[in-house]
């Protein structure tokens, strides 16, 4: 069975705010759900499948079904960190193809910016690996820095090359009035920003924002019945990558496992992609992922990102045209939802005109949940225009 064409994304909504101290987590889930359903032209009563991840409060999907008053025939609370929402789109397409539901709602919300104490974390003390990582003062930037340092050692990648990724994101973010950081930065400014965990500077790191987002994934018959232009789900891949019994390879991500099945299912290759949303928790996340998805050869990422390769609309691989997690939004410390949302905007022709890819037919969205320095859940989606 393939999910190619089995489902369409009919609604997408990104919360416009980046600081939301005056809402509860459940409220933000509800606001983004309402936004995505309105975008699709559907109502809460139409929803029969619900998807959420570890950011959902309380009893997760069950608490949220209760809060939202949903009557469901399918629930899925798969948790793969920040990539969860790409996994959910793939699973929603599978469930729709199997007849388990027809209108699937996916939501994300979090408030790590204004309520960091309430933020849920995957660094759980009862994890079997906890004794062998947490006790050494592992931090999120520190773990990614281990990957960056090793990539530099093996391939000669430089801090200036990583900085080019942040520069490209900032060029896009200047057009996004909701972006947390809207100022264009230079390579020098990235390199002169304070070192957080060598070799990663402050501007190599994504933003920390409150916020959320939601998607509505529907059966093809429903997509056809709606007035709104929808986006076709063409392919999906998901895979964990872990420490491999103490033989961790820090120079690649789980995209080496999740990318190929997604491309195969969609029947396309990297050179066919018009726009890519690439998970950007840190600049190194983007660089390794570009290699892993086959946009360039292994070890060539540092050279690939030069000369405005990532800048829309004319770069070789325009990426993260909303400003990405590096500048726009990384709600709940989870960047996967906003990756899908910007890909939907591009395929509908609704990105900001300054960064809209002309006749964007084929887009990729990729999520990385967890850490390049230890273990991660990776997910790749290939999406197309409605008639793809």
């Amino acid at each position, binding site marked *: 069975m393939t999910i190619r064409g089995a489902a369409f994304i009919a609604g997408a909504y990104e919360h416009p705010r980046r600081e939301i101290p005056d809402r509860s987590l459940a409220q933000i889930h509800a606001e983004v759900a309402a936004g995505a359903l309105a975008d699709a032209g559907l109502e809460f009563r139409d929803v029969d499948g619900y998807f959420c991840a570890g950011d959902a409060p309380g009893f997760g999907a069950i608490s949220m079904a209760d809060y939202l008053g949903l009557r469901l025939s399918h629930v899925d609370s798969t948790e793969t960190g920040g990539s969860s929402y790409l996994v959910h789109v793939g699973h929603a397409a599978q469930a729709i193809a199997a007849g388990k539901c027809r209108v699937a709602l996916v939501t994300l919300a979090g408030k790590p910016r204004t309520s960091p104490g309430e933020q849920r974390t995957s660094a759980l003390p009862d994890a079997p690996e906890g004794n062998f990582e947490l*006790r*050494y*003062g592992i931090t999120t930037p520190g773990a990614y820095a*281990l990957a960056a340092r*090793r990539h530099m050692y093996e391939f000669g990648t430089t801090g200036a090359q990583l900085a080019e990724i942040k520069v490209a994101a900032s060029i896009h973010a200047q057009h996004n009035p909701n972006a947390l950081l809207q100022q264009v930065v230079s390579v020098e400014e990235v390199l002169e920003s304070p070192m957080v965990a060598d070799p990663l500077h402050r501007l190599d790191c994504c933003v920390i924002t409150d916020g959320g987002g939601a998607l509505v994934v529907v059966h093809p018959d429903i997509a056809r019945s709606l007035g709104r232009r929808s986006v076709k789900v063409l392919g999906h891949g998901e895979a964990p990558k872990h420490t491999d019994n*103490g033989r961790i390879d820090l120079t690649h991500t789980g995209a080496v496992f999740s990318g190929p099945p997604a491309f195969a299912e969609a029947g396309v290759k990297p050179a066919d992609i018009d726009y890519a949303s690439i998970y950007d928790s840190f600049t190194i996340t983007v660089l390794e992922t570009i290699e892993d998805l086959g946009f360039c050869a292994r070890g060539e990422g540092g050279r690939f990102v030069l000369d405005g390769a990532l800048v829309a609309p004319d770069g070789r691989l325009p990426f993260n045209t909303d400003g990405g997690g590096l500048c726009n939004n990384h709600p709940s410390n989870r960047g996967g939802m906003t990756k899908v949302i910007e890909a939907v905007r591009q395929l509908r022709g609704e990105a900001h005109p300054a960064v809209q890819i002309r006749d964007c037919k084929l887009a990729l969205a990729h999520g990385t949940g967890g850490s390049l320095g230890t273990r991660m859940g990776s997910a790749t989606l290939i999406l197309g225009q409605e008639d793809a």
Partner: protein
Amino acid sequence: MSLPIPPGRVSPDNREHFEGLQTGRLLLPRCDRCATVIWYPRHFCPACGSLEVSWFEATGRGTLHSFSIVRRGQGPYAEAGPYVLAYVELEEGPRLMTNLLLEPAGFDHLAIGQAVEMVIERADGVPPLLRFRRAT
């Protein structure tokens, strides 16, 4: 400056490992079926699926595989000042996360590939902690 020795959990999965550290020895599990050296310590071989392992004494020597100088620690490390988070590749094969202690050398002497040796640090009421320093 010395680094904190945060709490840990000794469990039936890793008891032999921590008991070894208490007596100054680095004990690692090796699979009884396929002979793979296992890390992190557990009673399971992720290479072949065997539930039977035996513990052997490793040399405690290795090389620096990757490192970062973390400038802003959290929790027990919040007041630690800059410290080195690292992966060390043991002579026996596994790469493990650890800290590299800087005495007597400083940050400027860090280099991937350099030889390192284990330092077992102890504190009352918590499991010992396996750290490393440049090999002498």
